[in-house]
């Protein structure tokens, strides 16, 4: 099955980013395809490379970067990013900033769009 993953919440404050990551990882392990991952609302904060959690905690941004570097298209909504201080200067590797149209495009070209929010 071809999935799009839609993340509406930022890291740590809510479990959404963790659940989305766990879902993506499990889907890939089962041989499914991830059409893309789209970050919106506070979800865009998952993409800041300035994220620096305590060493004994999971590093949410690095997990996304690892997926991005495996070739999964990770898109950060530009309008939501601009509001929240995410720009090319602090964007983590393995992701790109683009428009909301990408979300619609991903949704209609996937079998399932999975939303992770609060």
């Amino acid at each position, binding site marked *: 099955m071809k999935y799009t993953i839609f993340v509406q919440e930022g890291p740590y404050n809510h479990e959404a980013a963790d659940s989305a990551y766990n879902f993506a990882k499990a889907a890939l392990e089962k041989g499914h395809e991830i059409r893309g991952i789209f970050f919106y609302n506070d979800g865009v904060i998952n993409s800041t490379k300035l994220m620096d959690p305590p060493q004994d905690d999971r590093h949410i941004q690095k997990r996304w970067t690892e997926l991005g570097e495996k070739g999964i298209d990770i898109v950060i909504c530009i309008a939501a990013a601009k509001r929240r201080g995410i720009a090319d200067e602090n964007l983590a590797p393995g992701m790109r900033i683009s428009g909301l149209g990408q979300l619609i495009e991903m*949704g*209609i070209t996937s079998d399932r769009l999975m939303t992770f929010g609060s």
Partner: protein
Amino acid sequence: MSEEDQIPAKIMFVMRKPPHGSIYAYEGLEVILISAAYEQDVSVMFMGDGIYALKKGQDTSELGIKGFAKTYGVLEGYDIEKIYVDRISLEERGLTPDDLIIDVEVLEPAKVNEMMNEQHVLMPF
């Protein structure tokens, strides 16, 4: 693209959150407007506190936030004409369609359920 991809996809936006107090309704509306450019079969379902976004007489001046209720009025101009409201949610809040800023179709919960099942993409806000 395969032939199947060219049939307009059914996309439903499910608006559940109140218009003020968080940004979901507003940023959700931005997605709805963008979706109009893709010539898909778009509908919008208001339920729960999401219905308050359509209530007449909103005044955000004291909140220091730009009101966006008027923007719902442009949906029709974007060819987004399938605007639905869940009957129970409406009644629970003591509202009728006359209290809303745009024309909506009021649906029974069973119909809401049925329509959600028909969608290719269901996007909640």
